[in-house]
């Protein structure tokens, strides 16, 4: 059978007309479905001309660990119920940390196919119910439990191994990675929904205050980099990655309202059109030729760019998967924004990826500081893009016309990657 492997297009146009997220953080006493309702209510409030809930035809919910963190299978169905949407079809999607992006992509495909006109999609993750060491284990289940955990690999360990390879091949330094953390914390400090709305300087001041309170010697760091070099306050988690190279453990939910292009204007004057979507899969670290990039990310990006008919230079802003600082370095080169290696590694330190830089990356604070509720993260990325593209991002609004944007969401250490491109016309 001969099949066309040429450019794929969506069957019809698709737009996002609403987006919401709940406050990310340690949400003790609030469950997945309850956080979903918070995000859902915020989404409803974001639809300029309102949404009649009877018009929503299906719900896709990303979640990867409710079976253990909440001892609940099929959590998407309960989110649908609590949002008042029973009996519409509800699909729970697990692709590790890319679950919500896959859920949103399924919603997009559902509309593009003509089956639905109005779809809800997003994700949830309640992660703080277990002690950190047990949560670390649950996160490791995103990798290959049979053949990677075999070698003693934790999840940070896998990204640390990529960081070691990057440092060896390109001379990337721990300070290059620290600059990513500093930049993303600067952004999160302006994001009221972030788990850590704090700059690195804020953390330094907190530590100094604590030392004063306890009558201990006051540490004197010359600057943020010197603080981040201090092994007492920034210990190794998996060398060469340190505590501040890693995202926190987060409870959170986010969702978006996706509609057919022909009815988008009945919801808002400024829909955000989905013009490109790509998804690809990858294998274990030991089955890859190189450890300095994520192969599935390059394939997903290529497919999304081809569908959209745009290239990396055209993209104004991006939310990328920075579960670890090294992940952002790889993301911005896999997306073609910066050359792989030193150019990508030094982009943050050189100010190229700040809100005022040539390519603002992770204006939300990223997974690093906004937080990473794994099954919800992809939807949280789209929320930020939706706010920025419509000029609603408040103090962290980029100073450019963000009419073309990208989201890049990685499942596990690159076993799933979804890249999507959005346009405001």
């Amino acid at each position, binding site marked *: 059978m001969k099949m066309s492997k040429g450019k794929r297009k969506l069957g019809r146009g698709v737009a996002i007309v609403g987006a919401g997220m709940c406050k990310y953080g340690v949400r003790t006493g609030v469950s997945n479905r309850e956080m979903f309702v918070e995000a859902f209510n915020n989404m409803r409030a974001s639809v300029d001309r309102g949404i009649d809930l009877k018009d929503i035809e299906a719900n896709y919910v990303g979640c990867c660990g409710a079976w*253990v963190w909440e001892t609940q299978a099929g959590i998407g169905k309960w989110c649908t119920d609590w949002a008042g949407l029973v009996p519409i079809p509800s699909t729970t999607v697990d692709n590790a940390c890319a679950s919500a992006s896959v859920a949103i992509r399924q919603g997009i495909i559902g509309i593009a196919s003509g089956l639905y006109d109005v779809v809800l999609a997003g994700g949830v993750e309640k992660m703080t119910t277990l002690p950190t*060491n047990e949560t*670390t*284990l649950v996160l*490791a289940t995103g990798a290959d439990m*049979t*053949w*990677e*955990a*075999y*070698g*003693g*690999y*934790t999840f*940070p*360990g896998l990204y*640390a*191994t*990529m*960081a*070691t*390879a990057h440092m*060896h091949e390109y001379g990337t330094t721990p300070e290059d990675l620290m600059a990513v953390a500093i930049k993303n914390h600067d952004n999160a400090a302006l994001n009221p929904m972030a788990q850590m709305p704090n700059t690195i300087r804020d953390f330094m001041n907190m530590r100094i205050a604590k030392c004063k309170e306890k009558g201990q010697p006051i540490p004197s760091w010359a600057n943020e980099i010197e603080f981040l070099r201090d092994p007492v306050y920034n*210990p*190794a*988690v*998996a*060398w*060469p*990655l340190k505590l501040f190279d890693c995202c926190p453990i987060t409870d959170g939910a986010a969702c978006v309202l996706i509609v057919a292009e022909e009815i988008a204007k009945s919801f808002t004057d400024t829909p955000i059109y989905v013009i490109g979507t790509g998804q690809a899969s990858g294998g*274990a*670290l*030991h*089955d890859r030729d190189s*450890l300095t990039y994520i192969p599935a990310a390059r394939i997903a990006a290529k497919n999304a760019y081809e569908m959209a008919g745009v290239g990396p230079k055209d993209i104004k802003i991006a939310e990328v998967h920075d579960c670890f600082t090294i992940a952002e370095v790889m993301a911005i080169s896999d997306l073609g924004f910066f050359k792989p290696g030193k150019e990508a590694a030094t982009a943050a330190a050189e100010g190229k990826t700040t809100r005022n830089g040539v390519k603002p990356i992770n204006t939300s604070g990223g997974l690093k500081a906004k937080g990473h509720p794994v099954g919800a993260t992809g939807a949280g990325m789209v929320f930020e893009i939706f706010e920025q593209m419509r000029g609603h991002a408040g103090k962290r609004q980029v100073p450019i016309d963000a009419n073309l944007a990208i989201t890049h969401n990685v499942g596990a250490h690159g076993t799933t990657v979804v890249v999507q491109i959005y346009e405001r016309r």
Partner: protein
Amino acid sequence: MSEMPFTAASFDKFCSEKKLMASKCKQCGTIWLPPRPLCTKCKGNQMEWVQLKGQGKLVSFTTIGVGTPTMIEAGYDRNHPYCSGVVELEEGPRFSAQILGVDVTHPENIKIGTPVTADFIERGSFSLVPAIANVRKTYLVFKAS
């Protein structure tokens, strides 16, 4: 030996006999470690077991202080980190394993490209499923040589 299915359990059985065994595609000759029942290169599904020499080099690595439950049980912690790495075998395939014989307290001195040799170590395993938790088995590890 040729009767053994191309599974993780068979691999474990060979390890318990201190044999490093991989599956080899009869069609294209690609060697798979971890062993696979289907050659993902040529898509052939006729495989045979082959024994590897156990010589390789370190592709990349990390040192871990907050380890997996298996490694915590084995005595590793923040003060006693261990090294995990990706090894490339002489015969071609790569494998994720614990790396012994390196200075884990000074990871900056561990060199990519370090020659390593296969070794076998017995320890417990971890699972959320009680029936298969804590089963002791022989693990393939590599020693810097």
